[in-house]
C-alpha cells in the first residue's frame, strides 16, 4: 500500500510503499523511536496497534522540545 508521512522534526513529507500492518510496524520501518513522536492520522492521535490503510496520511509530531 502507499502512504504519506509528514515528519514535523525533519520538515519532510515522504510517499512510501508500506507492506507492514500496524503503526508500530511503520515506525520500525522508518527507524523512529515511538517514545519521541506522537502519531496523528486524520487529526486524531493514534497508538501503535492501529492498522495502517492504503492512502493513509500520517503526521509524526516531535515530543522532544527543540531547546
Amino acid at each position: 500500500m502507499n502512504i504519506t508521512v509528514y515528519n514535523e522534526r525533519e520538515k519532510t513529507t515522504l510517499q512510501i510503499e508500506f507492506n507492514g500492518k500496524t503503526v508500530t510496524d511503520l515506525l520500525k520501518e522508518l527507524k523512529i523511536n515511538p517514545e519521541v513522536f506522537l502519531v496523528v492520522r486524520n487529526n486524531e492521535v493514534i497508538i501503535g496497534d492501529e492498522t495502517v490503510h492504503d492512502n493513509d496520511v500520517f503526521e509524526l509530531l516531535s515530543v522532544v522540545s527543540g531547546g
Partner: protein
Amino acid sequence: MDCFHCSKSAVIEVQHGALCKTHFINYFEEKVLKTINKYRLIGRKDILCVATSGGKDSLTVLYLTKKYCERNNIPTKNIRALAIDEGIAEYREKTIIDLQKFCSDHQIPLEIVSFETELGKTLDQAYPIINKGTQKKPCNVCGVWRRYLLNKYAAKSGATKVITGHNLDDEAQVIMMNIFKANTQLAGRMGPISGIEESEHFIQRVKPLYFCLEKEVRLYALLKGFQVQFTECPYSKEGFRHHVQEMLNDFEQKYKGTKQGIINSFLALLPNIREQEKGRIDEIKQCSRCGEAANKEVCNACVMKEMIING
C-alpha cells in the same frame, strides 16, 4: 486499542493501561495538581512568576497553574509570566509569538527580558567571545544568564516562587548528567522544589510537571489545542544533555519505565544526598558586583559579562 476506562480509542499507553483523550486529560491534570499539593509547591499567599518560553512545557504549566489557583480560590492576579529572549536567530522569536497570544487569551501579564538589553549582547554574539577563552558550550552560557535574569526579574516583580515547566524527562536527564559528572552538590539542589529553601537572594523554583513524561506534556498541549510549533534551537545538539536525552529515550523504548525509575530512585536518595551536602548546599552568597545570588564572591553571569567587555 480501547481506553482502559471506556470504549473510546486510546491516544496513549501509560503505566496502568491505555487512555482515550478525555481520560488522559483527567489523568494528566490530576497528576500535576496532586504534585502541587503533595510538595506544597504553591501557597495561598505566594506571588507566582511562571518561567515561560512559549513551548509546550511552559504553556502547559502556565495553564495548569492558573487552573490550580482557580480551583483553590487563590487569586489569579498573583500569577505573572516571565520570558527570557536569549537572542538566538530564527528560534526564540517564533515561540515568543505563541507565548504572547497565549498570555493574551488567558489574561496573564507577560514580561519579556532580553540578553541583549540586559547584558549587552545576544547569545549569538556573546557565545563565540566567551567560548574563545573558556571552551564553554552555548548551553552553559545560556543557562547561567537565563537563571540570572529569571531570579533578578522574578524578585523585581515581587515573586515568592518561580514556577518552571521542567518535566520528568528533563529531570531524569539532569540526574544522570550529575551522576556522570559526580556532581553531588548540584544533585542535592534538585527535586520538585529546587534551589535553596530560605534565602533572601534566591527565589525558590518549583516544578509542577515533575512527574509528567515529555511525551505526555506534548500530547496534553496538543489535545488542549495550545498553539505550539516545533522549533529547534540551533545549539541544542552541541550540549552534553542531548546525548543523555538520546540515551534515555533509547532505554525507555527498550525498557519501559526507565525514566520513572530514575526519578523514583533519586527521590528516595535525595534526603541522604542533602544531608551529606549540608553546609555546602545551604551556602548562598550575594554577588559583590550585581547583588544577585552567587555561590562565590562574583557570580558566573558577571564573570561572563566581564569576558565580553574584555573581548
